[in-house]
């Protein structure tokens, strides 16, 4: 039997719902990874030693182990100590923290590359170091890292397929369900791929918009 795309309309609502979950989880995790990235970067650079050291371990944990394992730990592991998260929440936290660590690396480098005269100028006006970081240094660093963070966010979208293994009916799992009912893997996986492609394009478009809005040149 050849390809037969006529089965798709009957299952299109499952696939679209899957798309919605994928988009929702990706956007939520992206926001978490961005905000988390800023916080982690500031901790890594400026927190006292006692906070920085445990944080290093946490960073290593998220960079040095598979994302899949991290999702299992958050979803199945935390239950044992009484933290029972809905699967999609566990997915958002796992993806968000994982990519926050990667974003943090980018933001740290960007913070260090902001001219030190910027901090000096802010301090001479009377701002505290924290205020100067918040209003002057970090905003510049964040602007500089929007493009590479955009790349991370596309990786995040693709890795969101992993949350299917903890039972979130996102795009990949929805495609699998449709395949289970129709035995038409090629058609539905192709459809899912096309959906990822479109979401990807949309994300790139949003990224360009953001870049244009906040980009600065010295």
């Amino acid at each position: 039997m050849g390809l037969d795309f006529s089965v798709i309309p009957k299952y299109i609502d499952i696939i679209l719902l899957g798309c919605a979950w994928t988009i929702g989880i990706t956007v939520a995790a992206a926001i978490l990874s961005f905000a988390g990235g800023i916080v982690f970067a500031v901790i890594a650079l400026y927190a006292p030693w006692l906070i920085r050291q445990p944080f290093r371990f946490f960073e290593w944990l998220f960079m040095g182990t598979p994302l899949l394992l991290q999702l299992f730990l958050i979803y199945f592991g935390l239950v044992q100590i009484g933290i029972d998260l809905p699967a999609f929440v566990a997915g958002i936290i796992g993806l968000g923290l994982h990519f926050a660590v990667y974003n943090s690396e980018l933001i740290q480098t960007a913070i260090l590359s902001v001219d030190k005269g910027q901090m000096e100028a802010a301090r001479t006006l009377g701002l505290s170091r924290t205020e100067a970081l918040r209003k002057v240094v970090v905003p510049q660093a964040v602007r500089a890292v929007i493009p590479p963070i955009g790349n991370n966010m596309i990786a995040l979208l693709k890795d969101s397929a992993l949350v299917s293994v903890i039972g979130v009916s996102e795009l990949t799992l929805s495609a699998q369900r449709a395949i289970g009912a129709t035995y038409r893997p090629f058609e539905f996986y192709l459809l899912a791929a096309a959906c990822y492609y479109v979401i990807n394009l949309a994300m790139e478009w949003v990224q360009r918009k953001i870049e244009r809005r906040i980009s600065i040149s010295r």
Partner: protein
Amino acid sequence: MTDQTNFVEIRHAQKSFGTLEVLKDISLSVERGQIVGIIGSSGSGKSTLLRAINDLDPLTGGEVWLDGVQVNQALSHRQYEKHINQMRQQVGMVFQHFNLFPHMTARENVTMAPKMLKGLSQAEADKLAEEQLDKVGMLERIDYYPSQLSGGQKQRVAIARALAMKPKLMLFDEATSALDPELVEEVNHVMRKLAEEHMTMIIVTHEMDFAASVCDRVLFMDQGVVVEEGPPSLLFTNPTQTRTREFLRKHLEGAK
């Protein structure tokens, strides 16, 4: 103790980086409304001395007093942070490389600190920005970003930003050194205007003509000490020290 100190008073300032001594026991006092110029070759310690006044480069020894309050007090870290932020609000500083905030417009550059630290409303802050930018002749560029401004314009905005905190004292660290020659005068003009308003100023500069025309007193520094000081009419025309004569002669040759 308030009565015993001048408006700005530096006592036995000493600063070393490792074994390198950049300031060797410098004492200096400046009266309210006075304009003091500091000249000297690079590495003479003049910028370090200026930056010690608002503790940007903390001294390793000695005291800095501003208006009866010691700037570099020995306090606990937390208290010191609070104290120094208070002190710095009273001291405006202008840098060689402007250090404008590139992600903010001229207006935002000027209003950011007053809004944060003095709790100005947006309306009050806008009024302040218009006043200060008008003063430096940059009102028509109020919503421009630094990248859209020339060097001279950037420096004028930077001066407006410092003035917006209503400082008691202005420090200029080679404010025109990074400018193209044709842009120097517009910045000098603003500084002259401040001088006419009797703003207390300490000016580190390479421009002898400007120092001569604006300053009440000029200090010549070399190798971490003040070699000679006096009114510009004397120091520039009739220096007593060989090192001063040497420096001025070289500088004159360089200017030709």
